[in-house]
């Protein structure tokens, strides 16, 4: 087995995450799908790091993880705020530009 298979798997997971973002309307599930896409990108970086034999890819994956953590904190805060003002976590309900 060649390590390129990890990249194929990552592409598959990325696609599944993207379809989740498009299909689901619960904001939290949309967010989880985004996390899945970020994880798939990380897997690609790690697999490429191994194939090229240097650790830059792993450092980048590390940065992606940190940025994803920051993104989750802010995103979930926004979802909680939306829920407070609209009493629903559906992305369809947040159709106005103001709260």
């Amino acid at each position, binding site marked *: 087995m060649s390590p390129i298979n990890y990249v194929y798997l990552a592409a*598959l997971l990325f696609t599944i995450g993207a379809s989740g973002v498009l299909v689901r309307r619960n904001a939290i599930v949309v967010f989880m799908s985004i996390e899945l896409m970020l994880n798939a990108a990380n897997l690609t970086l790690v697999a490429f790091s191994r194939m090229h034999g240097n650790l830059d890819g792993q450092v980048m994956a590390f940065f992606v993880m940190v940025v994803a953590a920051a993104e989750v904190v802010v995103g979930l805060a926004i979802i909680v705020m939306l829920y407070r003002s609209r009493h*629903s976590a559906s992305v369809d309900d947040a159709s106005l530009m103001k709260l």
Partner: protein
Amino acid sequence: MNTLAATSTSTGEAVQFWVLGTVAVLGGLGTVLMRRAVHSALCLAATMIILAMFYLANGAYFLGVVQIVVYTGAVMMLFLFVLMLVGVSAADSLKETLKGQRWLALGCALGLGILLIAGIGQASVGSFTGLGAANAEGNVPALATLLFTKYVVAFEVVGALLTVAAVGATLLTHRERIEKTKSQREQAEERVRGGKQLPPLPAPGVYARHNAVDRPGLLPDGTPAAISVSSTLRERGQIREVSTEQMASLAALEQRTAEYHGQPTTPQGPTAEAEGDSAPEPEEAAK
């Protein structure tokens, strides 16, 4: 893994890849397809743990541990906390607001998948280097060397980003109380003015056998009073229908009384008794 230029990985790793990769894809599908957000979160956690295994298999020992600690430990717990805050009615509605959006989205996703996988298929990867040399003095020291020399500026910026994110989240969720809280008396007056339920709400449950909190109490005419069940259960659609069953057991009771007194029995007796305890579950999410 420790050879300088290999063309394929060990058989053990291949087996691990095919077994865990299948589970990872199933977890990803579950994240997207499960109707309840909690189930999605659990599927995503499973996928993330498997990805951690893959990181370990790829020689990213530090990232594998960080993946488990940060993602399945912190991020997924954060998701579950927010689900507990928000997720009273967290089941997605299946009603389509945009016509044909689901199929269009599926087509787009399929196109993206084909594009990505065909793109990877175009690349010719004969041999790979492996991390044996890079990880020679240990994965963590090597990563630290890179992080604090070549990427030190990015590292500092990411630190600033984390601080900003923490402050931003605090600001977003902070709520200033503008009006003062209503006193009990004001609330009572408001209820009278609004013509809402004045006495305390009725208690759930009927008779000694069915005093569970998800059973609505019965009104004098035998109809269930939905107001007697907690609003959380009502929003989740977890009220158990009780009226038909109740009528059946009442009929059975009457029949037994009649038998005891030696009176002729009514014909609806046996069918009513056959109803038993199988409560008809209402629709999962009452929409």
